């Protein structure tokens, strides 16, 4: 099993979710985050002083999937979330050792 962490632009969330859902991905966990990256933050102004806000609103998806599904999941995310403009985000894949569904104690792929 793998944990896919995808950082995307907030307005793409709905679309990505729908695409994954069509793919049969039944679950994911979403966090509002602030992203720092190449997409440079604006020079903001507050009461007369400038400062750079490097942190832009992003959305972090965390999806645990079976090894076999990693590829199509990441590909779907990438193709749907892509706008081609800077700041589109990243997809990271991490190993997961176990997964359990709290309700049923099922583990492994059953738990997803």
């Amino acid at each position, binding site marked *: 099993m793998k944990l896919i962490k995808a950082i995307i*632009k907030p*307005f793409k969330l*709905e679309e990505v979710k729908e695409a994954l859902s069509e793919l049969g991905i039944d679950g994911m966990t979403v966090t509002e985050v602030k992203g720092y990256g190449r997409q440079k933050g*604006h*020079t*903001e*102004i*507050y009461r007369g002083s400038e400062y750079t*806000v490097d942190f*832009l*609103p992003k959305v972090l998806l965390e999806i645990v999937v079976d090894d076999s599904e990693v590829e199509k999941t990441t590909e779907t995310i990438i193709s749907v979330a892509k706008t081609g*403009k800077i700041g589109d985000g990243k997809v990271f894949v991490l190993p997961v050792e176990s997964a359990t569904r709290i309700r049923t104690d099922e583990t492994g792929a059953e738990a997803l």
Partner: protein
Amino acid sequence: MWFKGLTLGLLAFCFTNNILAGGVETFDSDYAAFMETSGSSFFTVSNLWLLLAAALVFTMHLGFATLESGLSRSKNTVNILFKNVFIISMGIITYALYGFNAMYPGFAEGSAGIFALGSWFNPADIVTAANMTAEYADYTWYTDFIFQAMFAATAATIVSGAVAERVKLSSFMIFATLLVAFAYPTAGSWQWGGGWLSAAGFYDFAGSSIVHAFGGFAALACVIVLGPRLGKYSDGKVKPIPGHSMPLAAIGVFLLFLGWFGFNGGSVLNADPYLVSLVFCTTALAASGGALGSILFSYFLLKKPDLSMGLNGFLAGLVGITAGADVIAPGESIIVGLIAGAIVVLSIIFLDGLKIDDPVGAISVHGICGIWGTLAVALFSDAATIGAQLTGTLAYSAFAFLFSLIVFSVLKFTIGVRVSEKEEEEGLDYSEHGQSAYNI
């Protein structure tokens, strides 16, 4: 020509005191004499009431600001608040410099009653006993100004809500200034300035058409020119974009309800106990009817008790009663409200079907219910015929729509009226202001 007039007016206006130096003494004694008369008592309380009504209408601007922010996404909040700060400041000042005199003193004998340009703000004769006593009205000239000035900015605020979350700030500021400074006083003078509509028997007590339908149809034109927010209508489906804070929206609506007591109640233009109390009753009953109407009707359609519709319902009822608050009986005002509450639900759903994207429902609340309220005068009272009401409300709606369509289109094809996709996605707070509304 008009520019020279503006400059002169501005200068004259700014040095009122000096110019007036000569006349002050006669004023003082004339005014004191008036204040000794028994008539000064009703004058004083009426004047106070209109000033308080002005303060209540001012409160509506806070209501608009919070309602509009609450119903938009958090990334556009600074932008919305900024627009509201600008609109009220600009509105009061342009109204002082031009609008008030263009709208009010009315038309010269024999004029067509269409365009009152020429009556520039001329301060030399403001502080006279004639202007500050019952000779003028049941209130002073200054009271008249401040009460009307608070109304003036409303039209632009209504548009502000409808174009929220994607309009380019600079274009909106230009548009709002033209609308408030020129279009509103011009149109307003047709009725409240004693122009052609008032001659035609049109009845619009506090402005269902003059203020609300006017604002609502200006909004409609702008929204058509502007297009919907990104993602609102994708794959042929309507995707609701819920507002970011219902408490803010609710604060806004309750403050608008409160302010409406001044909006309608002040439009009695004196403190007549019977009329003002009648207007308070019809206003509150229509608002309540509106909320219940929207709640029931949307429950019936959608099977859920919908807060956003209940809030819109309050406003629908209020807009609905505005034209006839002094001539419709309290019981009937409940019905006017209930119907307005149902209309607003239908209208919002209908406009969404047409892909006309109005984040706060301004077109439905102010435009459609403004028309309904104007017609309700003919249906529920004898104050005007349906024909006069139709003429009037169409005149205001059409004028506002055409004026806005033209001005906003010109802006679109010159400096542009819409932020870039990127800016819209990031939110106007970042892109236009470099500020964010919420921080840690």
